[in-house]
């Protein structure tokens, strides 16, 4: 465990020095929250809704940092380390690939956690957003959505040939999910046919679950999305470790 925490400490510092993720995983979600706050304030989600639009969108805004970290940050950092032959240096040490992946994964888990806390504080203080469901259920769905999104990134980073390839795959995954899964554009404002289509994106499952647990409403079963996300996490993590490329 000592090696894990020493590596995590330094990798976290390096990542913060780089500033990219501070901007995209912590500041950007706050900006999106502020824009929504200015536009919708305390308005109800729809006429006669028992919750506000902001409350309905809170889960989605939390997912911005997951997308930034899991689909841009994590795969690029691992692919970059491979290209710069940093992984090659680790290869001639006793380090296990799972150790390195776990460290980089944890860096982005921390970003997501910081983002969740800052968003909750800002939304609660400025727009009186309050959780209406169970906090534990919401945290559980947040954790699951985060881990499944990050595990996709870990798989991309773990097996991509170089950072260029990782960048292309990351963009293909990142932008559609960011725009269409309801992270930036609420699913509710999309046309019906489009809502149907985006429900197939893996992140949409987690977003719906986060929304329902936050609002404390029963949104057509939790078992299916939980199983889907657990499956994605297990498969992606397993493949990333199994097919890890040092060079």
């Amino acid at each position, binding site marked *: 465990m*000592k*090696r894990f925490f*020493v*590596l995590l400490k*330094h990798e976290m*510092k*390096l990542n913060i*020095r*780089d500033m990219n993720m501070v901007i995209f995983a912590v500041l950007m979600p706050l900006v999106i929250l502020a824009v929504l706050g200015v536009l919708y304030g305390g308005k109800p989600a729809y006429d006669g809704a028992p919750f506000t639009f902001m409350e309905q969108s809170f889960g989605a805004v939390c997912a911005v940092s997951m997308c930034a970290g899991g689909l841009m940050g994590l795969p690029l950092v691992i692919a970059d*380390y491979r290209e*710069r*032959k*940093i992984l*090659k*240096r*680790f*290869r*001639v*040490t*006793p*380090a*296990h690939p799972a150790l390195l992946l776990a460290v980089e994964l944890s860096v982005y888990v921390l970003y997501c956690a910081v983002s969740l806390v800052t968003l909750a504080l800002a939304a609660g203080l400025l727009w009186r957003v309050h959780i209406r469901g169970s906090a534990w259920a919401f945290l559980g769905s947040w954790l699951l959505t985060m881990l499944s999104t990050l595990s996709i990134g870990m798989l991309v980073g773990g097996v991509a040939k170089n950072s260029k390839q990782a960048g292309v795959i990351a963009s293909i995954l990142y932008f559609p999910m960011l725009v269409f899964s309801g992270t930036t554009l609420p699913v509710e404002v999309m046309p019906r046919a489009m809502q149907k289509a985006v429900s197939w994106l893996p992140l949409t499952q987690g977003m719906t679950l986060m929304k329902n647990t936050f609002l404390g409403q029963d949104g057509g079963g939790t078992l299916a999305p939980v199983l889907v996300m657990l499956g994605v996490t297990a498969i992606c993590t397993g493949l990333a470790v199994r097919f890890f490329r*040092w*060079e």
Partner: protein
Amino acid sequence: MSEAISVCGLTKTYGSRMVLDHLDLSVKSGTVFGLLGANGAGKSTTIECMLGTKQADGGTVSLLGQDPRRDRRALFERIGVQFQEGDYQQEIKVFELCEETACLYKSPADYRALCARFGIGDKLKNTVKSLSGGERQRLFIVLALIPSPELVFLDELTTGLDARARRSVWKTLEDLKAQGLTIFLTSHFMDEVEALCDEICMLKQGRAVFRGTVEDAKRACGCERLEDAYLMLSDEEERE
């Protein structure tokens, strides 16, 4: 004296080009072995195939009695490596790189003492990229010694160092050898090879053209300086 490295029939081809042609090497524990050869002769490929970072097409490698690919994690607890092109995280500082390396081993050496010994003790808080070429080279030797290894690989160990720094690196390596460290190095500097190596192997296009002590090489060619012997041995091949 036991064998630290045993290489048998090591062969590697890139496409149709044979870069290593049935190479045999044997290095005794506690000695310094030098692998010589022109650029592109196959020195780095030899090291990479021995370490398992490149897959050889044929032959067997045994390091400290273990298989570098099968016993990777146990073996690299006891082996230090300095690659020719050492790279590092963009913004990392010297002490951070040392700590990231040291934490991977069960009983690492004190990196502060090693850095001081190699004359970069006052650079711990500097970023690695701000170091001069020579300082960075010494840092990568420090990283290879952090495991407190029984066997260390140094690929072009003193390239980029000034005369004084080279001498001090030699001195340190001699001290470590006296403590029982086995050293496998490559170098283009014949004075260095003469000063450090107990045995050498000269590579030419992936084949060993000479194996033995520095004295053997000089005697075989009737030369006083190793550099002349080296040039003669590689030239002779060319004429054939």
